[in-house]
């Protein structure tokens, strides 16, 4: 039995969420504007990971590397005096995709746990590489002089303006991902996730499909990285560390893989929990830990899955 029509709990929650996001800056408190900007950027990163993880079945523990590459592109260009977003942001995406092409071409030849560990290995290598970069801050990272300029069209140094830009980009990515997932390519990728051998026998060049998916997701992560560099006006190698990859992975799993709203919910849930808990006690991690465990043990398929109810067709 398919679930009942357009209006169900999931869609309702998602719409409510987007509506709430749309009005947050109107409350005027810069603090919350900045907090939710950060959450949305992480949601973007989680979404990009979900594309290869939930839909592509590729578990990458090195996804944060692409975030880092995107962020550093913006940072280094800023150091060289290039402030235009129209130049640095596409370049951030391009470099992330190029690095992903190399990493993917090698890693995708293996699967399962080996794939997880190889992606981890590459991410760590990039991390150590960036730590030893002398001119660009090394392990301390570097600050940016200011946010990227959009040739006078928008002044994103104003927090509210930046917030709405990020929101629009998030919606765009959500829309694009939705189209991708429901396209022929998306169907094929999910088919490969479920049974690669069958897809191969049907004549699909599975390696190529997976690689394209991998690179595309990296591009989105690169854009998220560029936005992150703008958000905090800081880039550092910690952005690429495996712990950062793990945190994004946690967001995806927490929110619910195999759905596009899940990663957003996951990012929201994890970062808000951290924020709220750290206000109460500096020992917030001891509460967050069991909280995450309970969420996983009680609900299947993450927060999003819990909203799904009994009629479950994946």
């Amino acid at each position, binding site marked *: 039995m398919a679930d009942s029509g357009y209006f169900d709990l999931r869609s309702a929650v998602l719409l409510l969420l987007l509506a709430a996001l749309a009005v947050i800056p109107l409350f005027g408190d810069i603090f919350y504007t900045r907090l939710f900007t950060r959450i949305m950027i992480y949601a973007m990163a989680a979404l990009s990971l979900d594309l290869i993880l939930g839909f592509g079945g590729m578990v990458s523990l090195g996804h944060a590397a692409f975030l880092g590459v995107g962020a550093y592109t913006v940072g280094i260009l800023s150091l060289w005096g290039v402030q235009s977003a129209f130049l640095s942001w596409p370049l951030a995406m391009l470099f992330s995709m190029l690095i992903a092409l190399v990493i993917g071409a090698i890693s995708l030849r293996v699967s399962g746990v080996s794939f997880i560990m190889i992606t981890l290995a590459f991410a760590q290598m990039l991390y*150590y590489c960036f730590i030893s970069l002398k001119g660009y801050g090394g392990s301390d990272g570097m600050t940016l002089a200011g946010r990227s300029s959009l040739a006078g069209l928008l002044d994103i140094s104003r927090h509210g303006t930046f917030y709405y830009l990020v929101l629009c980009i998030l919606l765009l990515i959500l829309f694009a991902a939705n189209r991708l997932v429901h396209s022929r390519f998306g169907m094929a990728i999910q088919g490969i996730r479920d049974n690669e051998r069958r897809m191969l026998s049907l004549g699909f060049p599975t390696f190529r499909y997976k690689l394209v998916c991998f690179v595309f997701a990296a591009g989105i992560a690169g854009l998220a990285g560029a936005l992150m560099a703008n958000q905090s006006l800081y880039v550092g190698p910690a952005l690429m560390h495996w712990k950062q990859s793990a945190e994004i992975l946690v967001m995806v799993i*927490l929110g619910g893989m195999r759905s596009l709203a899940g990663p957003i919910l996951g990012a929201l849930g994890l970062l808000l929990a951290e924020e709220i808990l750290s206000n109460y006690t500096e020992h917030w991690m001891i509460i967050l830990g069991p909280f995450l465990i309970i969420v996983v043990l009680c609900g299947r398929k993450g927060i999003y899955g819990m909203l799904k109810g009994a009629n479950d067709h994946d």
Partner: protein
Amino acid sequence: MDPMLLLVQGLNGMQLGVMLFLMAAGLTLVFGVMNLLNLAHGSMYMMGAYLAASLQQHTGSFLLALLLALPATFLIGMIIEAVAMRRLYDRDHLDQVLVTFALILFFNELVRIIWGPQAHFMALPDGLTGYVTLFPGVIYPAYRLIIIGAGLLVALLLYLLIMKTRLGMLIRAGASHREMVGALGVNIKLLYTVLFGIGSALAGLAGMMAGPILSIESGMGDSVLILALVVIVIGGLGSIRGALLASIMVGVADTFGRILLPPALASMVIYFLMAAILYRRPQGLFSANG
């Protein structure tokens, strides 16, 4: 390089490898048999170190501390299994990652609450504070030799356990056919609990042995965990033999990398090694057969 120096560095590599083996053995055992990816393994390492350090402060004896802390970590492992892990066997690996990651957060904070944020001290056992002369001109710290010995002993005991005892037979059988073993009347639940306890005790032992030479602080298990993961993947998930060989390889590679290469490249050596091996042999060096 001077051959004596080479020898000592080789010993250093072996010692590092053996430490890694202690960590990796428990991790690969749990994964191989129970198909459980346990990221909280590093936390057991940390708990072992903290418990042993505290016990040593109270009793004044390193050996006593070790003998008490070992069953303690075994027990903690079994409790974790019963409370959290038990529900995860049927789940996706990713759910396991999430839960065990949450456990890392929990334990890191727990030790800070119980023992405070400062690093802790563990003394070397009396009598092992000096060094031995292996050859004329080549001296090596006594305690590190003990570590090598202990690690090899553990490897031997594990081998005997898995290959020559009834429990070991059950473990191997449980790895290949869980339901069948259960149908034969063996208490699979208890088996798994015990096994997880053994894995945790091994990690705890690694922590206790490392305590005197490393700093005991919150989060000390995180970096060792990553190394252990690298080792078991190279060695082959579920293979103890593989874990031993891989840990020695990783230990030696890392040691020589650090002295021969510039620091940035040196850090990358083990990841490079892992990527290269996985590329040629995705399943690792050995298959899961204990």
